[in-house]
């Protein structure tokens, strides 16, 4: 389906994850974050870029890997993206939902 984010039509799946991650912009991220009650800080944005970089390198994303990235601790990650950090941050980062169990 198509969702209009930051006045741009974006293709997303039924859970709201981008089908074409290259359509993503930071302005879209701000708007998506606000819709789930998150005001993006520098730290959030650093994490979003980290996730996107890993995605474009084809590195599978796991909670553990984010915790070992040196960017945030796992506890901070949960605090920054309430409601399931890896899935919420991936949606805001405009990448597919990580198919990870850890």
């Amino acid at each position, binding site marked *: 389906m198509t969702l209009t984010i930051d006045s741009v039509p974006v293709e997303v799946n039924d859970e709201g994850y981008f089908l074409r991650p290259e359509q993503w912009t930071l302005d879209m991220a701000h708007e998506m974050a606000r819709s789930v009650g998150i005001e993006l800080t520098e730290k959030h944005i650093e994490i979003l870029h980290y996730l996107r970089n890993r995605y474009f390198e084809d590195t599978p994303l796991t909670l553990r890997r984010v915790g070992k990235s040196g960017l945030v601790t796992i506890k901070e990650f949960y605090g920054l993206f309430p409601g399931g950090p890896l899935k919420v941050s991936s949606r805001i980062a405009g990448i597919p939902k990580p198919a990870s*169990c850890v």
Partner: protein
Amino acid sequence: MEVLTQPFPKAPDPQPVQKVLVIVSKGTLEDVYAGLIMANGALMEGMEAKMFFTFFGLEAIRKDRQDHLHTATVGNPAFMQKLPTMVAGLPGFEAFASTMMRKEMDKLDIPPVSEFMEMIVAGGGEIYGCKLAVDMFKIEEDEFIDDLAGVITVGDMYALAAGDATQIIFI
């Protein structure tokens, strides 16, 4: 006779699970990991998670033992089916097989038990021990991991599961 225009009213959307209570009663590598993965997975989905370790499951919350759990090589028909039981029972075989299994898990980014528990606690999960089993095995408090939220009774455990969207998982 009244004619129903909608004989099958649409069922309401099912209520999502909001909390899981995972009870781990076994101390084998695979049983403990099953519990950890389900509890951590719940937190990653934005649910609450509580863990209750009882009986041999207590091995998983003992500091000096949790990262050395074994998988049974004897009496486990799914383990290397072609391997004769006599061989699987040789001294050291179980330890060797368990080490190999932990290595394979590490490749999949599955952390050691101690680190896994730290992740769960960091995500707001809570880990408890069973009072009755602790008394029975005569385990001292300082043998447990520092992150243990408490040693509690079965009644306290049920209180942890309060809420009408909780699932209790027993392993």
